[in-house]
């Protein structure tokens, strides 16, 4: 972005951020995920350290930050997907409606039933479009009126009109953008409470990206959405709240992700209170 005066944010980002609707006051917000003092380490080396913030119901919450700041690590704590990584260790607490997701008696399978996820690269199963969407309901035993459930999910993901005549064809024949909307349909088919999106549009072209963003506006009526993105315009366009992560380099050279600032999106992009946030959103860093 070159030499930008440090008080001026990219005009498109700023315009988008200023267009955010007015949010309900803090007292009226429901906390879905309460993150407190969360530290995640892989094989002993911390990837993120001491992260605390609240995710609110029916909000889109963006997590932004430079590469290596632990955005994906953080979002993968919310559905215990880090459990699948060897040597991963999670300390601190993530309270989901007040229940600690990492309490010893919590089954990660139960967590993932309620907290769905869309990945960075579209990853449809090598099965038919129908079977992709029906997989979640089937493994969870929600097989009553399965056809209707699949149709509803595909409609919610704005994909129904494009695929309703070829539900039995392989999902691998869809375009990248369609595949990603299929992954969203797959995630909403089990009616989770929260949907996590890990850079859902980073592998897509601008048109497909716009469709995904429009979708998020519709989906947040029914779901709480947490999205990781390194596209600041995207965060400014879709997110109600934005968390900025940065990389903290210790004197020994260890790089750890830390939460610098968490606030309403409009504030993060126009009047951030931390110098590091300002440097990042004005393009002087990262």
């Amino acid at each position, binding site marked *: 972005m070159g030499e930008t005066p440090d008080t001026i944010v990219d005009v498109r980002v700023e315009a988008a951020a200023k267009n955010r609707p007015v949010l309900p006051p803090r007292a009226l917000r429901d906390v879905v995920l309460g993150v407190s003092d969360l530290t995640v380490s892989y094989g002993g080396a911390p990837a993120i350290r001491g992260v605390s913030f609240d995710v609110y119901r029916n909000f889109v919450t963006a997590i932004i930050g430079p590469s290596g700041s632990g955005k994906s690590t953080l979002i993968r704590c919310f*559905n215990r*997907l880090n459990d*699948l990584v060897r040597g991963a260790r999670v300390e601190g607490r993530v309270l989901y409606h007040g229940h600690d997701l990492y309490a010893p008696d919590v089954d990660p*399978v*139960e967590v*993932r*039933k309620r907290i*769905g*996820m869309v*990945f960075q*690269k579209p*990853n*449809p*199963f*090598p*099965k038919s479009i129908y079977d992709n969407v029906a*997989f*979640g309901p089937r*493994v*969870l035993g929600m097989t009553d009126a399965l056809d209707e459930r699949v149709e509803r999910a595909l409609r919610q993901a704005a994909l129904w009109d494009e695929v309703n005549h070829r539900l039995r064809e392989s999902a*691998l024949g869809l375009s990248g953008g369609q595949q990603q909307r299929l*992954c969203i349909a*797959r*995630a909403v088919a*089990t009616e989770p409470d929260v949907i996590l999106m890990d850079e859902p549009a980073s592998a897509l072209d601008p048109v497909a990206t716009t469709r995904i963003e429009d979708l998020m506006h519709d989906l947040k009526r029914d779901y709480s959405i947490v999205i990781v993105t390194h596209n600041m315009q995207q965060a400014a366009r879709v997110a109600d709240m934005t968390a900025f992560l940065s990389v903290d380099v210790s004197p020994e050279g260890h790089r750890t992700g830390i939460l610098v600032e968490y606030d309403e999106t409009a504030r993060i992009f126009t009047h951030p209170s931390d110098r590091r946030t300002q440097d990042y959103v004005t393009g002087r860093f990262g």
Partner: protein
Amino acid sequence: MRAALFRAFLLLSLAIGFVALGTLVADVLWKGIPYLDGILFTEAPSADPDQAGARPAILGTVYLMGLVLLMAVPIGVGTAIYLEEYADRERWYNRLLELNIQNLAAVPSIVYGILGLAFLVRGVGLGRVLLAGAMILTLLVLPIVIVASREAIRAVPDSIRHAAYALGATKWQVVSRQVIPAATAGIATGSILALARAIGETAPLLLVGALTYVAFDPTVLGAFTALPIQIFQWTARPQEDFKLLAAAAIVVLLAILLTMNALAIWLRDRYQTRF
């Protein structure tokens, strides 16, 4: 210049393989065609070459194939699933298991034969029966089935597993509904190739007591012979006509092998999942 020389060397290498195989096939076909008739498939061996057939040997080979398939595939695929999806590689016993399987693949087949003779035929007291031969061939090809199945399972990307876990699937559901279906084509291909290896084996079967002269249809718990052994027996005879009969039996064996390899290639091209 160097490039041209290298090219010539490559072509020569290729030609040696092709010419050798071509000559062999042509020779066998030329000699065997007159004896490739109904008698070969319907009659038992006989002292008269014009009356002699390989029916017990062909049936023996078919039974062996069936039994090896029934035993090697479930055990091999099960081992592969354990090693790829469940085993913790940091544990010494899992590493030992892997090392063991790699070494087993390199053990000469005659050693399996000795094991079969000592353990199955004498130790367990199974006797010189078809089942003992099938069990030894199963052990022989098990490492091949395991290695091929592991590769097929490893080719299923983690993104598929993560997607299934993220939808609330249990480990068993992820493995049984996503990983195994996606790996089936690779597992089937590897299993067929392993089976093709098994039906060409002679040495271990001789040791566990396959007979060289069997005039009756084999049973699972009875005496038996197989095609490679019948071929071996016929070629050892002094009469020229039996050598031609052996050529005809070789054609049958080659036809079975080529059909299986073709099936493996077809399966791979038709059903392999590309991610």
